[in-house]
């Protein structure tokens, strides 16, 4: 071995390797410095200032605006099949009064006074796969969107709506919401509005609304308007009074890029909308958008506190939006962020609080039950998140 090390061939080889290594490193660093890294996988391209400037968006909360601070939740309590859920795979959660409704792959679980009770198709649900739940503020009826129809739970009885008995657009109900006397559903065959007073369905597809296709997956309502997340078609804004539509799409028109960060929706593959405090929040599988009626702002994992760009669902409450991503649970007021992440190998995790660009990690024990988040809802100082491995209940922390 010593002979080899002392030989000229070895020395030449080592020298050559070092030279080539240094050259390679210099090449890479030079590219990074000059912003010529054209397609760095998954990253936001570092652009010279004169190409794209992200102008300040008027109306966004200031980083030190304590009144609009993003609340931090903790003291998580996690529930799985061991605690009485019919399945660990939880699709949605909705809180109403003393009851919490959790939609799972194998039935609807209702939490009340510390106990779980399960309802399935044997009890009258249209399908065991419950993907969305809402409660009518007017009647108290519980509307349950399932993989096989819509179910109304009223006065202890289950009533089934499907495309054959009621004229619904499709049996797979991705989202159901109650908006006054109207019940809105979004399906792969279009959006539907059920007038509970007239007992009539009105269906919205590409035939009568500005959608590319009738693939609708999310819906929310606010300030007299309805916002439909149309897969591949962005957001369809509908005014039920005037019957006027307005569509919002990604202005660049290309699936493979986001040309400008704050020019409109970040992508047309939208998954959910939520409207609160005059702000429309939109989730996609490519990032998130915020729209105040005049300005759009885009958020990506790479330029904000968002846990992941793949967002299954979002819900806004007051000034904050809560995002269910495939790799963590995030919340924001548009400026500051809190992201919850569970450790891979144990039940603990962290809340990553980003305020004014400064990150602080708060240890949480236990953390949320899983990082793949599918649903969220909160009431008062309690937050529930539905995950692919159970449902979690957290309390607002006094920091």
């Amino acid at each position, binding site marked *: 071995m010593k002979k*080899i090390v002392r*030989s000229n*061939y*070895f020395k*030449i*080889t080592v020298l050559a390797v070092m030279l*080539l290594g240094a*050259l*390679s490193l210099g*090449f890479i660093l030079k590219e990074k410095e000059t912003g010529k890294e*054209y*397609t760095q*996988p*998954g990253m*936001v*391209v570092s*652009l010279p200032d004169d*190409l*794209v400037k992200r102008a300040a968006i008027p109306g966004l909360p200031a980083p030190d605006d304590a009144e609009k601070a993003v609340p931090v939740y903790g003291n998580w309590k996690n529930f799985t099949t061991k605690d009485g859920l019919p399945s*660990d795979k939880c699709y949605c959660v909705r809180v109403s009064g003393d009851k919490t409704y959790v939609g799972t792959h194998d039935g609807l679980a209702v939490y009340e006074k510390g106990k779980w009770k399960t309802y399935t198709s044997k009890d009258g649900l249209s*399908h065991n*796969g419950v*993907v969305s739940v809402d409660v009518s503020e007017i009647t108290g009826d519980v509307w349950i969107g399932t*993989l*096989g129809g819509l179910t109304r739970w009223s006065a202890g009885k289950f009533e089934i709506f499907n*495309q054959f008995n009621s004229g619904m*657009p*499709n*049996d*797979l109900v*991705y989202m159901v919401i109650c908006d006054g006397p109207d019940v809105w559903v979004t399906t*792969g*065959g*279009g959006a539907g509005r059920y007038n509970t007073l007239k007992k009539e369905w009105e269906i919205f597809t590409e035939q009568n609304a500005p959608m590319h*296709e*009738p*693939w609708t*997956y999310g819906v929310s309502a606010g300030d007299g308007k309805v916002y439909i997340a149309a*897969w*591949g078609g962005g957001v369809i804004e509908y005014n039920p009074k005037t019957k006027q539509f307005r569509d919002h799409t990604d202005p*660049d028109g*290309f*699936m*493979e*890029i*986001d*040309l*400008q960060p704050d020019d409109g929706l*970040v992508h047309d*593959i939208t998954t959910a909308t939520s409207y609160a405090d005059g702000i429309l929040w939109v989730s996609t*599988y*490519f990032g998130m958008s915020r729209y105040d009626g005049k300005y759009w702002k885009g958020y990506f994992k*790479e330029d904000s506190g968002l846990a992941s760009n*793949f967002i299954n669902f979002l819900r806004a409450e007051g000034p904050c939006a809560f995002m269910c991503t*495939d790799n963590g649970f995030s919340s924001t007021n548009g400026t500051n962020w809190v992201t919850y992440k569970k450790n891979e190998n144990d039940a603990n995790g962290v809340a990553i609080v980003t305020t004014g660009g400064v990150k602080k990690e708060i240890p949480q024990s236990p953390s949320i039950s*899983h*990082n*793949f988040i599918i649903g969220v809802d909160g009431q008062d100082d309690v937050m529930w998140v539905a*995950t*692919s491995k159970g449902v979690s209940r957290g309390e607002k922390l006094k920091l």
Partner: protein
Amino acid sequence: MIKRFLFFSLFAAVTLLNVYGQAKPANYGNIPDELVAFDKYMKAYKYHFLEPMQFYGAGREKIAPVGLKEIRIGFLGPLEGTNLVLMGKQMLNGSTMAIEEANKRGGFNGIPYKLMVHNDVGLWGAAANEIVKMDDEGVWAWLGSIDDFVSHVAIRITLKLEIPNVNTGNPDPTFTETNIPWVIRTIPDDRQACYVMAKQMVDIDKHKRIAVIRTGSRYGRVGVVHLNRTTTRLGYPFILEERFKDGETDFTDRLERIKKTNPDAIAIWGNAKESALILNQIRALGMNQPVYTSDRVISEEFMKIAGKNAEGIKTTCQYNPDSNDPKLKAFRIAYRQRFGIEPDVIAAHAYDGMNILLSAVQKAGLNRAKIRDILTDNRTFQGYEGVTGKVIFDQTWNNIRPIYAAKVVNGKFEFGPAPRWVKEEVIYKKVSREGEY
């Protein structure tokens, strides 16, 4: 002497590693440099699809069930009630053949595979209901479909239910641009076809006035998007774009409008039957322009209806059906023996796709998340050599292998390598990327 050889070998290896180990910038979807969106003017803020999506959800911990009598694999295809039935049956045949062969080899550890066949109807999102049924049936993965609309609706629910999907027949470029980490596609898409067709029409055949007639379905609407964008970027946008409905038989009014524009080439984007009828009516109107078509004309149905009018038309093909590959020859013989007909492009890709799917089940076991992991790891099936050739997955698990050009000569399609986009012929050059291709 040996020492000297070893040192020089080491030196050469290190040098090569340095040269080829550099991350070479690659455009998503084989987009030619000169066609990258807005690239002539500015860089985009964010580029998608440059790294594979991960699946972070639960499921890998699930224990495989015991006591199963059959291993269920889903199939979704147009088998009745649509204009795609011929293709649907070919897809079913290809899938069935792969299943039967796998069962002859012993199935899954001695348990036979069973194909759970579902018909799709591209209406009111019915495909979603079929995927829910598959979940209720307990399929481990599924193959399908062909129609753009059906396939999109189906993969949204496959994401929700977390069932792996292998698509072998839908050419819609946006299909894999949805970021769904449960879907792979083994048939090259229309983005690749459009690049080849535009190259052929404009750069090679020097056409400047191109008129298009296409189906109004999503297949036509989305299919020609990249053709239009590409010819436009080359300086020659369509002079006219006419539409028709699937099932129509008389296209005279639209063809007369096209005739008035005096195009020097006509492109048809549609299914085999309508494309053949349009071609016949083009010639009947005395229009002798060169005709280019989408790849669905590569079928017995088209040749039968178009007859002599088919002579000279140019199109693309996702593989080379006349390849001398012994695997393809054996497949064609076995297919003819089993089904009594010639396999088409859909059958061949379904056969390959189902073999990939079954191989993933065999390797991963009875766990959907683990089957997904194997299908999408971009290692296990990267470079898979099927009867249709090599599979080259990009980061969206879309097969971006080079496709073929086809032309009807003496009443028969002849296939050859598709023209490449060569840097020297670009309409402008990006200084920052000189020397790379």
